[in-house]
């Protein structure tokens, strides 16, 4: 690791304007975490136009802050209202709300905040140490490796993510198809433009993301919202006692590790790691029956794990240029807008950005710790704001924001179109996440595949004979066929039919 570049990164973060954007990012993240409705991916999508107007490093620092800040905020509603602000805080509800009913809401929030901070910090240290190594390893990747890797990323997000696997795969494939709209970079031929000049340059990623995530969720919430504000329980005594800390220290340690490991996997992310961490605690506990009735570890472990995972999911993005979940796809898109292709060369070519973003997380998490322990009262009060008041404001930000990208009215209508598509997809049980992720990776997959075919002189077996791309593709096949194999196995052993498939596992970022 290049220690000088690492230290320079701190120099960049501590510049006043970067500190300010970091603060803005984590506060927005915290806010949308507290408010059920918009998730981090949608919020980042809505705020993407801002990246055109400010310095790249500041922009990414801010958008990253929204993502990990949301993990802190999601806890508050889980504990106080039994209403998870984010999908990754759903398991916190069980013990968090039980604690709140016993008048220990403050303790739960305090432990969650400390766990979050510890988990995130351990994860950032891991990120700091591991990321340059992985990037160094990935420098040798050529087009075949990239094609294979991007495909594996899309597949993993589709299979591990929310909802039915076939539907997720269809959404992802449609995303790949959408990415081909416009002029073909190899031959100059126009594809799927239907003679439209505006479509010839392709569909802007920001417009699609703002439509599918932003407008789609705004419309969806309009229907789901029940229009009333919630009155949260009183929060007192936020500082946990020494006994509570001692009791949850093991859970925090294990949660950090589980979160870090699962967060790195594409599609793993915050939700799965919070579930896995909770399950682990329950399994190793001397008295598992305490869980669900207000066990402090039941709050500490998932909250630690989801923050650790949120942080470590930056590793695949910053080192090999593959977004691990929908929020990371937004950041990937933001980097592309800024003219930066995330990948192994990032650490050498843009050390300011690489280390600036990583180191901003140390500071962002400190700010979040302050926001969520001494200042938690302010965020609790925000719960009293009626959702109906926020809806038109987010709608206006979205619509005026998309206009500012190219000063184009056409973009507004494209965004509305994708908003309607996103809304209808949700109604029909399709998640827009895999579609956006595949869309952002689409042109990489296509151009790498075609370049590889040129390298291999038209022989597709070349993908399998190169060691790294071959391994990745072998993994791809295993992941793709796993559900089929599992299905067959289950048929053979009827004893195990007690439905272990659980098709609607929650995914990292889109709120519920």
């Amino acid at each position, binding site marked *: 690791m290049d220690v000088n570049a690492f230290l320079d990164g701190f120099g960049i973060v501590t510049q006043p304007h970067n500190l300010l954007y970091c603060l803005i990012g984590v506060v927005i993240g915290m806010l949308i975490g507290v408010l059920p409705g918009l998730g981090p991916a949608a919020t980042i999508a809505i705020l993407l136009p801002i990246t055109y107007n400010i310095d790249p490093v500041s922009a990414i620092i801010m958008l990253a802050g929204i993502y990990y800040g949301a993990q802190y905020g999601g806890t508050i509603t889980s504990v106080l209202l039994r209403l998870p602000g984010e999908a990754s805080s759903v398991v916190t509800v069980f013990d968090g709300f039980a604690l709140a009913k016993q008048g220990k809401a403050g303790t739960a929030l305090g432990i969650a905040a400390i766990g979050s901070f510890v988990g995130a910090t351990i994860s950032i240290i891991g990120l700091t140490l591991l990321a340059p190594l992985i990037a160094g390893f990935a420098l040798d990747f050529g087009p075949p490796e990239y094609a294979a890797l991007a495909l594996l990323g899309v597949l993993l997000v589709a299979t591990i993510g929310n909802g039915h696997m076939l539907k997720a795969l269809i959404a992802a494939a449609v995303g790949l198809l959408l990415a081909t709209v416009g002029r073909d970079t190899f031959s100059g031929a126009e*594809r799927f433009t239907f003679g439209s000049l505006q479509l010839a340059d392709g569909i802007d990623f920001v417009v699609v993301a703002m439509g599918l995530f932003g407008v789609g969720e705004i419309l969806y919430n309009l229907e789901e919202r029940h229009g009333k504000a919630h009155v949260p329980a009183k929060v007192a005594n936020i500082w946990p006692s020494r006994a509570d800390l001692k009791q949850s220290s093991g859970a925090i340690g294990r949660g950090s*590790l589980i979160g870090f490991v699962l967060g790195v996997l594409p599609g793993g992310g915050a939700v799965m790691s919070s579930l896995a961490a909770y399950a682990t605690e329950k399994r190793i506990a001397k008295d598992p029956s305490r869980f669900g009735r207000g066990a402090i570890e039941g709050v500490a472990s998932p909250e630690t794990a989801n923050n650790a995972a949120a942080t470590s999911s930056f590793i695949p993005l910053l080192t090999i240029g593959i977004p691990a979940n929908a929020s990371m796809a937004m950041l990937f898109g933001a980097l592309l807008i800024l003219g930066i292709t995330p990948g192994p060369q990032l650490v050498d070519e843009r050390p300011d950005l690489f280390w600036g973003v990583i180191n901003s997380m140390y500071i962002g998490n400190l700010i979040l710790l302050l926001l969520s322990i001494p200042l938690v009262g302010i965020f609790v009060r925000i719960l009293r704001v009626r959702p109906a008041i926020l809806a*038109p404001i987010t709608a206006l930000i979205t619509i005026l924001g998309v206009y500012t990208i190219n000063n184009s009215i056409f973009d*507004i209508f494209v965004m509305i179109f994708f908003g309607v598509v996103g809304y209808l997809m949700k109604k029909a049980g399709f998640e827009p996440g895999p579609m956006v992720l595949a869309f952002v990776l689409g042109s990489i997959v296509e151009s790498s595949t075609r370049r590889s075919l040129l390298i291999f002189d*038209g022989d597709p077996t070349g993908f399998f004979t190169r060691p790294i791309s071959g391994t990745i593709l072998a993994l791809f096949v295993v992941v793709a066929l796993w559900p089929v194999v599992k299905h067959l196995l289950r048929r053979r052993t009827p004893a195990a039919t007690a439905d272990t498939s659980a098709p609607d596992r929650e995914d990292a970022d889109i709120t519920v």
Partner: protein
Amino acid sequence: MSDERTTPTAAPADERDILTELEAEVAESLAEEQAPPGGPAYQVVGALVALVIGLGGAALALGYGLGSLRKPGPGLWPFVVSVLIAALAVALLMVGRRLQDSEKFTRASVLPAVGVVTFLVLGALMPVIGFEIPSLLLCAVWLRFLGGESWRSTVVISVATVAAFYLLFLYGLRIPLPHLI
């Protein structure tokens, strides 16, 4: 240490069970707030739309020229992807009819429809008369009719919001939104 590193896929049976239980519990607590599922018709329509996209994409891609593997044409990749979409859609048609993951359109679904109309009106009017009046209208409709706010708070919040956006975009960010004043 080994405990700490176990991932759900590699976990022994008892952890799997807890995980499954948890997931069921989570799904249940989420389901309380969800609209009722839409039934087979929703699933079939969803799959058919995907099928149409796949077949249409494949037909158009054929027209762009597939080329050969040695010299891939502009149509090859979209063709492969479209065929994949169509194949997946057929698979979904066969196995997915009984999925419960769709949501029924209810009377509340009128709200998003009205929302879309206000979006379209804003998009259409903005280049003609600037963003201020259409934005005010959008806020008013959303607050009063979609959100059920009182007239008083509707007026106060809409005016304050539009004024804030006016200052933010035209003076703060210096972005030339089409404006009236």
